[in-house]
């Protein structure tokens, strides 16, 4: 018996080693791309800044209803990196708080859309040809048929214009795209011999979907989620810009652009901060997505 036990210990140790080895290789593929690394560093820096906005921002109070008319319309300086706005608030501080809102929005939208879209797509793809496929996919088609921005705007217009409803709008227009992608990949894989092999073994449908098919399509799903994060920001900003999203004085990047546009071009630097914020966060997610694509493609 004792020799057997040692055997098992040795094997479990080896399993851990192999897992570490696979992670190492994935990291190697990721870091081969300088752009992906840049994306990751920017992403982490922004995330840290957004999380600790209260400490990072030079004037945390300026995020809200602070007013100081003495300092208004100041051009960029060392004291105010992006200048000050029409109420004398430090725009740099407001942009950092804006990043926090942007990350929050991405986090909430993706964490609702990703699981829902994936599960619906798996079910529809696996049961292709059954009634459940038709229900899910026709529903998805309905949402896809409407132009995304118009759909989001009308939802925001019907509901009260605020940041929560903006997120609901983006979520509603986003899930069908995941469902459709997962659906097409699942329906392509559901008749693979390895799926039939586990069916012959007696595995249940739900287990097959989540344990056999999902691992094979997870790469593209995560890559799409990362690339989509950029779009969530853009759509969110567009909704806010049009006045149907977050309302002033919320330091939302889109809302800020819309507010500060009034003073363009005379006080041109005012929109510079929020626009740069939007641009850099989108760029970070795009680079990150490209890096992830490399990691999954190399497997």
């Amino acid at each position: 018996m004792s020799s057997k036990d040692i055997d098992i210990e040795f094997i479990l140790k080896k399993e851990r080693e192999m897992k570490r080895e696979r992670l190492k290789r994935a990291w190697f593929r990721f870091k081969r791309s300088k752009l992906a690394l840049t994306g990751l560093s920017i992403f982490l820096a922004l995330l840290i800044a957004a999380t600790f906005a209260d400490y990072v921002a030079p004037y945390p109070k300026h995020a809200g209803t602070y007013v100081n008319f003495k300092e208004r319309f100041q051009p960029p300086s060392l004291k105010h990196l992006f200048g000050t706005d029409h109420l004398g608030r430090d725009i740099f501080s407001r942009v950092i708080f804006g990043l926090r809102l942007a990350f929050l929005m991405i986090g909430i939208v993706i964490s609702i859309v990703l699981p829902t879209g994936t599960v619906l797509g798996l079910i529809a793809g696996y049961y292709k040809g059954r009634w459940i496929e038709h229900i899910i996919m026709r529903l998805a088609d309905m949402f896809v048929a409407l132009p995304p921005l118009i759909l989001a705007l009308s939802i925001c217009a019907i509901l009260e214009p605020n940041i929560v409803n903006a997120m609901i709008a983006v979520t509603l227009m986003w899930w069908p795209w995941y469902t459709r992608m997962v659906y097409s990949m699942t329906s392509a894989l559901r008749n693979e011999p390895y799926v039939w092999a586990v069916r012959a073994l007696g595995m249940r449908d739900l287990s097959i979907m989540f344990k056999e098919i999902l691992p094979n399509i997870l790469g593209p799903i995560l890559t799409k989620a990362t690339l989509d994060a950029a779009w969530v920001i853009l759509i969110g900003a567009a909704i806010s810009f049009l006045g149907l999203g977050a309302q002033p004085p919320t330091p939302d990047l889109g809302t800020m652009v819309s507010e500060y546009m009034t003073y363009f071009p005379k006080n041109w630097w005012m929109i510079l901060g929020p626009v740069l914020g939007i641009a850099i966060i989108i760029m970070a997610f795009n680079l990150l997505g490209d890096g992830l694509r490399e990691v999954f493609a190399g497997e």
Partner: protein
Amino acid sequence: MANTDIEKGSEHPIMLRLKNLKKYFPTSRGTVKAVDGISLNVFKGETLALVGESGSGKTTTAHVILGRYIATEGSVLYKNIEIGHMPLIKRPLWLRREIQIVFQDPATSLNPKKTVKDIIEVAIKIHYPKLSKLDRVERLLELLRYVGLTEDFLFKLPGELGGGEKQLVALARALATDPKFLILDEPTSALDVSAQSKILKTLLNIQRDRRLSYILITHDLAVVRNISHRVAVMYLGKIVEKAPTEELFSNPLHPYTRMLLSSIPTLTEEESKLLPKGIESTGEIASAINPPPGCRFHPRCPYAMDICKKMEPPDINVSKGSKVRIVKCWLYAEESKTKL
């Protein structure tokens, strides 16, 4: 019915019996009659080879037995239980345990994202849920060594294995449930020659140790000669000849069987002298949507007579002694009559 009684010559119990099995696929261009009324038996501990060209319906037959397709007509009896109209999803767990399959291409029959351990462990988890984690790993190692692999393979992904190794893993997975009946769907055709011989040797050892029954689907006659006891030759959804392996190779009766044998590539003069004479491989298999009337092989048959074009030949029993031989060809109709 007559056939099955004659075939009872063996003292081994029948594991699987196909009776007038038909599988049709409706398509927009007509009904594809992939399998059109075949009957055969597989005995315990025996290998029955089902051979024929691509499109003859042998893989469809395998998948009906597995439960992927439901029989259109006729029956599939496993241990005298009708399973031909029972889709895989509806089959009880014990049945799924007893009938297992090894697919043609091991590159697609193993999940590329799972380690060898995960792939085999799934089978043990489903069929032996009471085993502890340690016992599962024990059993896993036993299986791996049994098919000739070592524990070094446990945590490899299919992509890190060679073709032969992959097929051994697929075999280990099928054996993990302790099956009684294995469907081998062209188990060697995707492998190189050295890997082929290893798989065949392992299959023979397993059969000897466990008295498994195999139904071997293949177009490779060398494989048939090496491991099967009896052969059924299929052409366009029908079985045209059934015979013990040695007899089929030494004295092929049906013109189609002769054509298949004559097309085995040979290296030397002596070898080619052993091949059947007077028939060469011509033409291609006809469409299963519109099969030729009469004998389905007549357009390619050098011996075709008038009757072949009009009437389908019956199954003619040409057995000598205890060895059952059946051939579906008008050429032997007279012979059998005179014998009677």
